[in-house]
């Protein structure tokens, strides 16, 4: 199995070498590898400041970029809180009070549970391959390692939070090692570091994601993918309000 995927990477990266300007194909490959069509993830998130840290355990189901359902499994204060997104509509469900709340899609840019990730990151509301235009910029060497660099600019019609994201990808496995997020003023706002690549159901995925806000070097949020299932078979009404409230 290892050989099979090793060969796939080599073939893809060789092809990319022959056609060095095809940044869009590269981005599609990253999306296919890391998102798949459907996925079920078990995630551990740790929010850290110098004097404090907090860990949450989450399950996240995603189908394409239109449907997502996340459930918090711990800690006790948030246990059971669920978020459903169907296209641009979002609902939170608080099982202890049996309260379902429709939330504004502007909440996609809200900090998720005090972390440096947003609702958009957790619910995977945007797709780098579909919502951005891509072009290569010169390779860069960071701490002795050379990266292919792709500049992703939001398409005019795309409803995304970040107008520009720069991907630093490994030329070995073609997967990203850094995403740099820029605001409208082209100011760097945060950096996502990705590491510890593992294979789940034939998909390679960096399992350690560290989000570092640019304005606060002492704070960071780390996501560890404990388990990931690609091409999960969800029930027909899995991404429905009935299922949202069935907890």
């Amino acid at each position, binding site marked *: 199995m290892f050989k099979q995927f090793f060969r796939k990477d080599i073939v893809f990266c060789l092809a990319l070498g022959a056609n060095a300007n095809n940044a869009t194909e590269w981005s599609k490959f990253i999306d296919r590898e890391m998102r798949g069509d459907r996925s079920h993830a078990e995630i551990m998130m740790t929010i850290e400041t110098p004097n404090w840290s907090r860990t949450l355990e989450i399950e996240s189901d995603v189908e394409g970029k239109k449907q997502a359902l996340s459930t918090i499994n711990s800690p006790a204060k948030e*246990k059971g809180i669920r978020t459903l997104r169907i296209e641009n509509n979002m609902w939170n469900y608080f099982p202890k009070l049996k*309260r379902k709340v429709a939330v504004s899609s502007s909440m996609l840019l809200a900090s998720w549970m005090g972390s440096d990730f947003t609702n958009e990151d957790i619910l995977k509301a945007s797709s780098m391959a579909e919502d951005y235009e891509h072009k290569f910029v010169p390779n860069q060497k960071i701490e002795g390692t050379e990266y292919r660099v792709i500049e992703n600019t939001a398409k005019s019609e795309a409803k995304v939070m970040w107008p520009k994201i720069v991907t630093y990808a490994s030329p070995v496995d073609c997967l990203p090692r850094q995403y740099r997020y820029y605001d409208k003023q082209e100011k760097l706002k945060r950096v996502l570091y990705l590491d510890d690549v593992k294979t789940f159901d034939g998909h390679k995925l960096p399992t350690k994601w560290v989000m570092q806000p640019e304005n606060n070097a002492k704070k960071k949020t780390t996501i560890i993918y404990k388990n990931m299932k690609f091409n999960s078979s969800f029930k027909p009404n899995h991404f429905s309000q009935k299922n949202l409230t069935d907890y």
Partner: protein
Amino acid sequence: MIAIFLLFLSFSFKTFAKFDADISGNLEGQGRHSWNNEDAKKDLMQDWDDEDFYLIYGNLDGKVEINGSRLEANFFARHSKSDLYENDYIAPQIFTFPNKLVARDVFKLQHKKEVQDSRTELILNKLYYEWDYEEHRFMVGRIYINYGLGEIFNPINPFNQPTGLTAISQVAQGNDGFNFTFFVSDKYTVDFFLLGDKSVNGYEGQIDRTLWVHGEYQFSDKLQFDYVIGEDQKRDKLGAQVRYSFTEAMVFMQTLFQTDYVNNEESHPLWDMMIGYDQQIINKWHIRAEGGYQKLNRYANLNTLSERFLPTEYFIAIANQYEIHPLVKITGTFVNDVKSGFTYFIARNTFDLGHSTEAEIFGYIPVAKGDKFSYPAQKLVTTDIGMALRTFF
């Protein structure tokens, strides 16, 4: 023999049934110092100056699931202590709002103890059995009914008080009866309720019935429509909610019309309306505005602050929440009566202490007095500063 039976039972569950059980809860303690409103002293015989008030409350929630059915229960306990209880002053009812933990109550399932300077309540405010099928859900018992977008005023849902202005937040009101939910399609859900209430007459006499329908229809990606219709608390009621989502924000409107009492008791029709706006301004700053009108019920008894807490007839409320640190959230809510000028400010500062524990400093301050013809409840609003410590398990 017993061991063999337990072994068989365990084997049976594992073989034939999906079994799941969960227990969770929370515990909160509050202390506040309160200063009385001068108008309440003069006009409403609330002749006290300043007092301390202490409250401890908590929930213990249990759930057992077997295949497609579920049993859920919540036990709520509350103990409060203050010298204000000695003369039956009204202020403690504001401090402990919502006072009724069961909105439509047939079975009582509660124990209350009143001594000179304290009150203790033990209530089973949720106890129901649920059957869940592919396209419908059936619940019987004491159930939570929670719908409607209003956080400060939510007139289309008379079965659960919004807690946006109250000091007790970790609570929902129970309702005794049946609920049938029909998931017609991905976009359309209808809830039918048959509820009863005996608490109005102190659990004596007949049951006041509630027949209620709540529908929720998603017209499009941006537009959702809710309607309510039925008979409740001896009035016929009809209402609706419309929600429109922009890319940047959400706007919603509610209205509810209530007829005279259907049994010819002395009354007058009531109606309420509200409009709301909700936006995440930046990733740490959330704003919500709600404004509207609630018709003053001239027959309501001021001494039982059981139905509504909002101390204004015409109101505009603006609630801001800002996360200044992952540990610290600050919330400021202004409520203004546009007719009388009465303005109420609520400030909360929440500190996450880790291990599912948080502390809160709060202040409730009437910053501008209403004129003397204003809504009477405005005079009852005290100035309070306090602290809370809450933990979840």
